[in-house]
């Protein structure tokens, strides 16, 4: 295993008013975990070097870019959800970054204020801001929240005391009147970004930004298709990492690097080379997002010798499966096309949401998986209840299926290991 360190930038952190001493411990722990979980893997593609570097620079390099952008007067917007139209931020020459929310370390900070029995992602995110231990949170101009669940919706009101938090209303149904509301929300979002940046977004700028974000989505779609090969050319852990990095990296550079990786994977596929042997069992994961550094399920599954070949999740295909129709220079038509694309996202906050069940079955077939693990964060009521329909569909199709409800704490790892291994025995038959 090579020497790996997440690089420290104490001066930059001071500048961002962070709890430097505490954060530095978190940095070392994350670096250790990354070495153990990622760098110990066999047969990693060469092009993963860029993504390793992104992690090594996670608390420095990318942060410097954000700070620099702010100095240039460009808006830096923190987000938590795939419903935030990043094209609009980019069109105003701004930057959209997904914020920290995947670690148990910040939960005690949140529990000083928030109730304990809510989603770990919401608690973790809130705690990162409250404890001043996420440089991304410290670097953003404001946070853009949405109304996809009750825990988030109400937490934004409290988070607003610590960092300006604006909320976009996401309807819960997909009728025509919901679409009408949505397009108004998109227009308000655009007005807000224009106000912050002091720029008016032109149709040309929005067209260019749409092209860039579509380019990022296409690169991720290409990666997903390559994972369908047997042997799998890349581990599930590495693919999940890339999907996580997709939320905070610069989109043009990121897409180019993902495409470089895909070029390498194409060669591997042609030569029948893989990150895992051909005999490895293939598992697809479906459900709630796994925010960085939540690698728990992937690590357990792949340590047991199986490979994860798809993530049907917000940090996964839900983020990039749909493109925005391009080719118009009329702003109203552009915003309509953008809204159409965002309305196709099949988040469990919608009712009914049967298109997600269809999508899960489609991705199962497309990825040549042999079983599905449904993953739901604790207290995520919408995914937890929608799980019933996913389970029924899998039973009907004869797809081996395991449902896991978990949080970020390591205390259920032993039990999960047994359940996952038993599931793999079941898949093997």
């Amino acid at each position, binding site marked *: 295993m090579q020497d790996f360190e997440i690089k420290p930038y104490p001066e930059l952190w001071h500048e961002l008013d962070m709890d430097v001493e505490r954060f530095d411990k978190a940095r070392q722990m994350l670096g250790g975990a990354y070495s153990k979980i990622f760098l110990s893997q066999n047969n990693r593609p060469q092009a993963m070097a860029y993504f390793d570097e992104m992690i090594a620079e996670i608390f420095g390099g990318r942060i410097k870019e954000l700070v620099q952008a702010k100095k240039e007067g460009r808006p830096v917007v923190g987000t938590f959800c795939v419903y935030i139209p990043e094209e609009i931020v980019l069109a105003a020459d701004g930057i959209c970054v997904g914020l920290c929310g995947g670690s148990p370390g910040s939960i005690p900070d949140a529990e000083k204020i928030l109730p304990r029995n809510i989603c770990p992602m919401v608690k973790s995110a809130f705690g990162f801001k409250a404890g001043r231990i996420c440089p991304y949170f410290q670097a953003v101009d404001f946070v853009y929240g949405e109304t996809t669940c009750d825990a988030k919706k109400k937490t934004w009101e409290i988070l607003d005391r610590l960092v300006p938090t604006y909320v976009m209303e996401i309807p819960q149904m997909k009728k025509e009147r919901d679409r009408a509301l949505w397009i108004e929300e998109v227009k308000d979002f655009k007005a807000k970004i224009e106000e912050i940046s002091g720029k008016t977004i032109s149709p040309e700028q929005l067209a260019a930004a749409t092209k860039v974000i579509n380019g990022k989505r296409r690169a991720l779609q290409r990666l997903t298709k390559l994972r369908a090969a047997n042997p799998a050319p890349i581990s599930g852990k590495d693919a999940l990492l890339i999907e996580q990095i997709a939320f905070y990296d610069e989109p043009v550079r990121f897409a180019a690097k993902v495409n470089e990786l895909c070029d390498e994977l194409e060669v591997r596929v042609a030569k029948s080379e893989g990150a895992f042997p051909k005999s490895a069992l293939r598992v697809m994961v479906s459900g709630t997002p796994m925010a960085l550094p939540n690698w728990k399920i992937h690590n357990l599954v792949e340590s047991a010798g199986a490979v994860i070949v798809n993530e049907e999740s917000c940090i996964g295909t839900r983020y990039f499966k749909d493109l925005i129709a391009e080719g118009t220079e009329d702003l109203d038509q552009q915003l309509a096309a953008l809204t159409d694309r965002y309305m196709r996202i099949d988040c469990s906050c919608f009712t009914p949401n049967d298109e997600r069940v269809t999508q899960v079955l489609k991705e199962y077939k497309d990825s040549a998986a042999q079983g599905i693990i449904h993953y739901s964060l604790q207290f995520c009521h919408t995914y937890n209840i929608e799980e019933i329909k996913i389970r029924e569909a899998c039973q009907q199709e004869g797809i081996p299926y395991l449902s896991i409800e978990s949080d970020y704490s390591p*205390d*259920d790892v*032993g*039990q999960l290991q*047994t*359940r996952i*291994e*038993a599931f793999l*025995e*079941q898949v093997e*038959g």
Partner: protein
Amino acid sequence: MNIGIDLGSRALKMAVFEGDELVECRMVESGFNPHQQAEELFKSFPPCRIMATGYGRHLAHKNFANGVITEIKAHALGARYFFPEAMTILDVGGQDSKVITLNREGKVVNFQMNDKCAAGTGRFLEIMAASLGFTLAEFGPIALSSGHEAPINSMCTVFAESEVISLKNHGVPAADIARALHLAVVSRLAGMIRRQEANAALVFTGGVARNPAIISLLQEHLGSEVLVPSLPEHAGAIGAALHAQMSST
């Protein structure tokens, strides 16, 4: 000869097969160094194929075992050894409880495990027995001797223990409290079984299947027969030994 070892949370179990014949079963406490304890168990037998299961399976694999299977598969195989038609299995061990559904061929098609706490497990009964001053062997028969139960609302070991203390101090007979505690475990287990759409006779394995009150209350609760193997605590080790045999040929 094939050996199966079940390195459980509370006890180590070993089953030895000569061909198709079960020739020996042994059990000791897990202790602090479970894999060394396990090595003591089989050292008097000639070298042979050893399959490990249970919490300590990976440690055993690192140290001596030829392979591992999970407790779920092991109990499925073990239950079928005693009852070849078994389709639904309830295993209640020291630290967890599971419900396993098999197809006609004996393959696992579905399973559930308890949450990460000790509710509805052997450990719960063990702690509750101690808080009433009984040994584990006395606990079930005492519960059976009572006709009516005191109300116990909590399934959390910590909270249930405070309920027990409060009931004792209100003069409620120990047998009634014991029955209530057993009933609390049984309703939890029955809930898990019902979620699994079990319709065939239930095979009950694991150390807790030695407890007559749990069996009796479970039959009452489910309204159907519960089949208990002659060596319920060894079902996992027997399953592992049978797997050793299957995978060697």
